[in-house]
C-alpha cells in the first residue's frame, strides 16, 4: 500500500538573482512500512524536502499525498490536526519544550489532539525508549541521546502514518547515534512504522530498505538495499531481495549494524 506520494515537488527560495532552487521536480512514493533513507551533500535540499513532506513548509509547486490526503490543500488548522495525528517529526536538535518533563513532552501531540491520556501507551513508549528513570526530568537535565529518545517517543506516540527524521544522530556521538537508529529501526520493524530518515552517515543509510540520493534538489538515485542480515531480519525484509547494491558502501555499515543487531534482537525478543 502506498502511504506517501509526492508529485513534481519544487521549492524556490528568494527571488531574482538571489533565487535558490532547493527542490527541483521531485517525485517519488513510499510504501507503508517502508524504511527510506535520504542522503546527499549538505545544502542539497534534504531538509527542505522533509519539511515539505511533514507539512511544516509549503512547496513552491507540486503535491504531497499522505495516506491519500493532499496535505498542502488543507487549511492551516486542518494541517495542524493532520500533523499531530499522522506525522512524527524528529530533528537534529531535538526541539523539546524545555518546560515539560519527559512524560509531558512525549504525550504532547496526543494531548493536543484533545484525547484522553493513555497511560498504558505512555508507559510502554517511555519504557521502550529506556527513559523510565528520567520521566520526571526536564529536557535541560537530560543528555543529548536521552533528549533525542524523548523526541522519538513523541514522534511515535500517536502511531503516525509516517515518521520523518532529519539527521537525528547529527548532534550525537557515534555510540549514542547507533542507539537512536536502533530504536527507530525497531519501531519500523515491529510496528510496521513507515520511516523516512535523513543522514550523512552512509552506514546508517544502508540499513534502510531503500535509499534516495539528492543532489542539487533532484533525486539522483533511488535504490533498494539488500544487506547481509541476520536470519531473523532477512525473513522480515524478504520481499526486498531483488536489488542489492552493496560494494564498498556496505563495509561502512557493518560495524554499527552488528552492534545494533545484537541489542535489537534482545529487546525485540522481550517484546514478542
Amino acid at each position, binding site marked *: 500500500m502506498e502511504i506517501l506520494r509526492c508529485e513534481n515537488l519544487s521549492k524556490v527560495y528568494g527571488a531574482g538573482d538571489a533565487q535558490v532552487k532547493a527542490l527541483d521536480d521531485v517525485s517519488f512514493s513510499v510504501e507503508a512500512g517502508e524504511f527510506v533513507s535520504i542522503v546527499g551533500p549538505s545544502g542539497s535540499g534534504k531538509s527542505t524536502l522533509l519539511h515539505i513532506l511533514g507539512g511544516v513548509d509549503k512547496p513552491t509547486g507540486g503535491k504531497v499525498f499522505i495516506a491519500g490526503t493532499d496535505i498542502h490543500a488543507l487549511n492551516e488548522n486542518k494541517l495542524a490536526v493532520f500533523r499531530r495525528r499522522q506525522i512524527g517529526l524528529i530533528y537534529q536538535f531535538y526541539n523539546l519544550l524545555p518546560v515539560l518533563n519527559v512524560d509531558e513532552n512525549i504525550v504532547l501531540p496526543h494531548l493536543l489532539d484533545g484525547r484522553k491520556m493513555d497511560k498504558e501507551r505512555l508507559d510502554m513508549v517511555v519504557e521502550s525508549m529506556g527513559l523510565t528513570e528520567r520521566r*520526571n526530568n526536564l529536557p535541560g537535565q537530560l543528555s543529548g541521546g536521552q533528549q533525542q529518545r524523548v523526541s522519538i517517543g513523541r514522534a511515535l506516540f500517536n502511531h503516525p502514518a509516517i515518521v520523518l527524521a532529519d539527521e537525528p544522530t547529527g548532534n550525537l556521538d557515534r555510540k549514542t547515534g547507533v542507539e537512536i537508529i536502533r530504536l527507530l529501526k525497531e519501531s519500523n520493524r515491529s510496528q510496521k512504522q513507515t520511516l523516512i530518515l535523513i543522514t550523512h552517515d552512509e552506514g546508517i543509510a544502508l540499513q534502510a530498505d531503500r535509499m534516495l540520493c539528492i543532489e542539487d534538489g533532484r533525486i539522483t538515485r533511488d535504490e533498494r538495499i539488500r544487506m547481509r542480515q541476520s536470519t531473523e531480519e532477512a525473513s522480515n525484509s524478504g520481499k526486498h531481495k531483488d536489488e542489492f547494491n552493496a560494494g564498498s558502501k556496505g563495509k561502512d555499515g557493518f560495524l554499527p549494524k552488528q552492534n545494533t543487531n545484537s541489542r535489537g534482537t534482545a529487546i525485540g525478543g522481550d517484546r514478542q
Partner: protein
Amino acid sequence: MRKNIVFYVTRQYMKKNRRRTFTMFAGIVCMVLLMTCVFVGKETGIGYLQEVASLKKGKWHVSMFDITKKQYEEVEALTWVKETALSKTLGCIDFAQSGNEERPYLNVKGYTSHCFDWMNITLLEGRLPEKPGEIVVSESARQDGARIAAGDVIEADFFTRSVTGTDAEVKETVFPFQQLILHYGETVEVPENFPYYEETESFRENKEYTGQQGTYEVVGFIETPSYEDSSAAAYTALTFLEADILSEDVFNLTLKMDLDKVSDGYFMDIVKIAAGSKFDTNDTLLAFSGNSSEMTLNRLVRYMTIFFVVLIMAASVLLIYNVFNMSFQERSRYLGMLCSVGATGRQKKSSIFYETFYLMLFALPIGLGLGIGVIYVAMTVFRPYIGALMNMEEFVEACPVTIKIVPENLVMVAAFSVLTAVISAWLPARKIGKIGPVECIRGNVEKKSRQYKMSRMLYRAKAAEGMLARNNLTRRSQKTRSVQRAAAVFLVLLIVTAFGSSAVSRVVTLKLKASDFTMKRENYDYVMYGNDDIIYEAVKKEIQADPGITQAVEWGDLMFVGEVPGSVYSAEYDTARRDIFNLYYHRELTDEEYEQEAPTDSYVVNFMMVDDETLARMAEKTGADKKKLLDRERPAALVLNEGMMSTDSISVWEREPERYRYYRIHAMTDLQAGDVIPVSIYSPKEEKKQVMPLEIAGLGSHEELKDYVEEVGANYLWLFVNEGVYAQIGKIIESETGRYGMSDRRLMIRTNGEPNQLIERVKKLQDGNNAGVLLSGNEARMEFGDAIQSIANVLLISFVLLTSVICLLNLFNSVQGWMTGSSREFAVLKSVGMSGGQLRKMLLYECVGIFARALLVAGVFSALLIYVIRFGFHTLFGNIVIWLPVGLVAGAVVLAGSVLVGITLRCCAKVQKEEILENIRREG
C-alpha cells in the same frame, strides 16, 4: 582609531537592536513630553485662565470709589500696588436725542487712559476720547433709537438725582433693586442705575443742577459696559479725564496688583484705607492670579506639579530599567567580551549611561517640541470645556491660545528628564559593572536538578493548553517576569493615581470649602440671602408671588448665639482643638496656658433651621425622633455629629500656624439621643444669659445626611431645629437695635425651569459689595472652587492617560520580548500539531497567570504606596478621609488585563506569521 571603543560598541549594538533602542527612545521622548506638559502647560494654562478671567470684569484687581487725594497717596504707597488708574463719575446730563423715554439721561464718567483698557471698553465705531471735551456713548443708546452720530455735539448741564418721599401714608418705599429705602419726607440721592420714575404717588424725583457745564463732541460708540443696567435712566457716556483730577475732592481709583508681592493681607490694607468708602474686588481675576490666598490655583498647581513629576519619573524609570534588564543577557555578553580584553567596571557602566544620554540628546528637543504641540492641541480642545465650566464661554471664545514658554521651565524639564535618566540607568549599570568577564561570557545558565512530576491536569482530556501554560509559568517564571513587572507597574500606576487623584481632589475640596458648614442645595435652582431684612422681605414677597417659581422655602442659621459647657463636646474634639492651638503657638501649651488662651468652659453651638418637610426627611435618614424634632414648643434638635477642624477654620489673632493641619472629628459630642444640651443664649433685653434645654432628638453622620449637608464638616456643633425653635431663639436675642449674634435667613427657590425675569433682575443686584439680597444660582456656584476642582480632575485624568502611554510602551516591549523569546517553542508546538487556536488559548491562560501574579505584586506595592501617600497627606494636612475609588480601580484592573491580553495576542499573531521553519532550524 575610534575615540572610545566602549561607546562605539554600544552604538553598534543599539543599531543592531533597533526595536529595543526605539522603545527606549520612545519612552524617553514620552517622559520629556510629559515633563514639558507639566511645566510649560502649567504656565500656559494659568496664563490663559487669567486672560479669560480678565475679560469678565476687566483687568483690574481692586476698585475704590469716592476716595480723596490722601487715600490715593496711601494706596500708591502700598508695596503690592503695581499700577493705578483713575476715574470719576461726572454726573448726569439730559440726553435730548434719546429714543427711549424711560432713559432720558446720559451718565458721564471720566476715565484716565488706563481705565479704558482695564475696564474692557470695546470701541464699536469712531475712536476713544483723547481730550476732555470728547465722549463715547454706549451702544445701548443707539439700539434704543437715539438720534445721534459721531461728530454730534452735546451741550451738558450736570445735575444730581434724588428722590423725596411724598406720601404720608406710606412710611417707607423700598426699591429692592437699588437697595434703597425711602421714608416719608426724606430726600435721598439715588445711585447711577436708578430707573426713571418722574412722579409717582409715593415719591418724587428731583434734579438738582450743579452748575457745572460743558460741551461734548461724540467721537465714537462703545459696546454697552457690563456695569450698565438696562433699566437705568441713564446711558453710559465716557469722556477723557486728565490727571489734574487729583485736585478735586473725590474720585475713583482702580489698581492692579504686583502679584509677586501681594499677600493675604491686601484685603485688610484696602479696608483700612477705604475707611468706609465703597470698594470692589475683581474676584474672577484674583481667583486665577494666585498668591492672593492660600487656596488659590497656584497652590493647587504646585501640589499637582509635584505629584505629576513623581509619577512621570516613576513610570519612566521603570520603563528604562525594564528595557535594560530584558537585554541584560546580551549586554553582559558583549560587555563581558570587552571586559575580557581589559575594559574596566567603570567603562562597562559608562556604556549604559552612554546609551541613555545618547538617546536623551535627541529625545529632549523632540519631546519638548511634541509637548508644546500637545499643550496647544489640548488647550484648543479643552477651551470650550473650560469656558463652560466657569460660565465664561463668550470670553473663552474671544481669547486665543498662546503658549507661554519661560526659560526656567525649560530648564526644569531638562533637569528632571536628566535626573530620571540617571536614576533609571544607575541600577542596571551597577549590576553590569559588578559582573566579571567569565560570568559574562558563559552566561548564567544554571541547571536545576529538580524533578517535576507530570501534572495531574494531564489525566483530564483537552488539558494540553492549560498544562503548557501552567508549566511555562511555574517552571520558568523568569521568562515572563518582565511582562509581569510591566503589568504590575501599569496596575500600580493606575491604582495609585486613582488614589492620589482622589486625595488631591479631596484636599482641594477641603481647602476650598473648609471654612464652613454648608447645606446642600442642588434641589434648588437659586438661593437668596438677605443682607438687609427689609429688602430681603420685599424681594421674598415678590418671589413668592411670581408664577414662575414653584417652591420657595426658608432656611436660616444662627451662628455664635448658643453656648454650651465644654463637656458637651467630645474628648476627640478637645484633642484636635488643643493640637491646633499648639500649632499656632509653635509649641506644646501647658494645661494652664491652654485654658487661658482657649477657655474650655464654654463652647459655641450653631443652629440651622430648615423647613419641616426637609427636617422630617432628615429625621428619617438618621432615625431621629421625628415627633420631638417637629415640636414647635419643646426645643429639640438633630445633631450633626461629624465635624472637622483645621488651621484654616480656627485662627488665632495675629498668629500664624506652624503648618496647615486638618482634623476630621468623628463624633463632635459624646452625648446620646435623649440627652439634653443646656444651651445658654444671651438676651440683650434682659442683659443676661437664658438657658434653653434642648433635647437631642437624634444624631446624624455625614453619610446619613449626605443629601442635605456637604461633607466638608464644621468645627462647631450644628443643631438642626424647626422654625418654631428658631423663632424662640430669635426672640431671645432680639433687641431694639437688631439681633445679637449672626443670623442669616435664606430663601431656597425652585423655578419652573423657564427663564424668569424677576430672577434676572434680582441677579443684577449682586454686582457691588453692599447688596441687600444676594441671589446665587446653581451655575454661579460652579465659578471658583468647583471650576478649579474640575480643572484639577481633568488634569489628573489627562496625566494618568499620558503616563499610561509610558506604561503601555513598557508592557508592549516586554510582551514582544516574551513572544520573540518563545517563538522557537511556538514553532515546535506547531510542528507537533498545535493549531493556532490552541496556541492562543495557551497564551491566554498564561496571560491570566501573569496577570494574577502582577495583580498580587501590584496589590502589595499599591497598598504600600497608598499607605505612604495617606501618611504623607495625613502629616501634611491632617486626618482627611481619602476613599480608594473602587470603581476606578476596578476599571483600571480590567483595562490593564485587557491591554495585556490584547498586546499578547497581537504579538503572538505577528510571531506566528513568521515561518515555522526558521525557528525549528535554529540551533538549540
